[in-house]
C-alpha cells in the first residue's frame, strides 16, 4: 500500500500523481481520482477568491486516520491525498484524492469515503471573498449527511 499525504500551498497536477501512485505496478486495475476545484459561485452568490486555513499537524494526522480506515474497509493498493491551503481563485485546484485497487467498486467507494470525511472531519476552514466582503463558509448539512452514510450501516 502506497500512501502519500501532502498539505501544500502550491498547485498540483493529477496526471503525474496518478503515474507516481501506479509506478511500475501491474496489479492495479482501477484508479479513481477526485479533483476539487475552486468554483466561481457558491449557493447562489458569486465567489471571487477563497482562503483555506488549516490546523497544521492535525490535518495530516486526521487524513492519515481516514486513509487507514479506508484501507481496512476496501482492498486498496494505494492512496494519495493532496490538500492545498492559502488563497485560491476560481479554477484553481483545492484537493486531490487518488485511490488504486484491483477492482473499480473499491476504488470508487474509497475515494467517495475520503472526500466525505475531508469535507466534514479534516481541520480546514474556507473563507470566501465576494463583492469586496469576506465571510467564513458555513458547514453544509448535506456534507454531514454524506459522511454519515459510511457509519449508518456498521
Amino acid at each position, binding site marked *: 500500500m502506497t500512501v502519500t499525504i501532502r498539505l501544500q500551498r502550491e498547485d498540483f497536477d493529477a496526471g503525474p500523481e496518478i503515474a507516481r501512485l501506479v509506478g511500475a505496478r501491474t496489479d492495479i486495475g482501477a484508479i479513481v481520482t477526485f479533483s*476539487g476545484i475552486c468554483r466561481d459561485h457558491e449557493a447562489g452568490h458569486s465567489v471571487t477568491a477563497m482562503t*483555506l*486555513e*488549516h*490546523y497544521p*499537524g*492535525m*490535518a495530516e*494526522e*486526521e487524513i492519515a486516520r481516514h486513509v487507514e480506515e479506508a484501507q481496512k474497509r476496501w482492498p486498496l493498493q494505494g492512496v494519495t491525498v493532496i*490538500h492545498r491551503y492559502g488563497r485560491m481563485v476560481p479554477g484553481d485546484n*483545492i*484537493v486531490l484524492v487518488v485511490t488504486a485497487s484491483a477492482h473499480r467498486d473499491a476504488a470508487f467507494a474509497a475515494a467517495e469515503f475520503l*472526500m466525505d470525511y*475531508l*469535507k*466534514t*472531519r*479534516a*481541520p*480546514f*476552514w*474556507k*473563507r470566501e471573498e465576494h463583492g469586496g466582503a469576506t465571510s*467564513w*463558509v*458555513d*458547514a*453544509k448539512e448535506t*456534507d454531514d449527511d454524506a459522511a454519515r452514510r459510511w457509519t449508518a450501516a456498521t
Partner: protein
Amino acid sequence: MKLLYFAWVRERVGKADEDIALPAEIRTVGELMDWLAGRGEEYAYAFENRKVIRAAIDRAHVKPETPIANAREIAFFPPMTGG
C-alpha cells in the same frame, strides 16, 4: 497548556494560540469552554454559541464531555469546511 483557535473562533478571540494555566477544577472540554467564555468580551463572543464549536485534544477530535486529563494542546474551531 497550549490553546489553539482557528477560523472565526481565532478572529473573535483575537489570537491564534496562547499558553494558559488552567484551574484544577476544570475537568472537561465543555467546562473549559465555559471558563474561557468568562475571560472577557472577546472570549464571550467567540464562545457565545458553544454548540457549534468543535474541539480537538492533541490533534484528535473530542466531544465536550471528554476529560482534559493530560492534554498538551487543545484546539477550538468551527465545523470544518475543507475538501
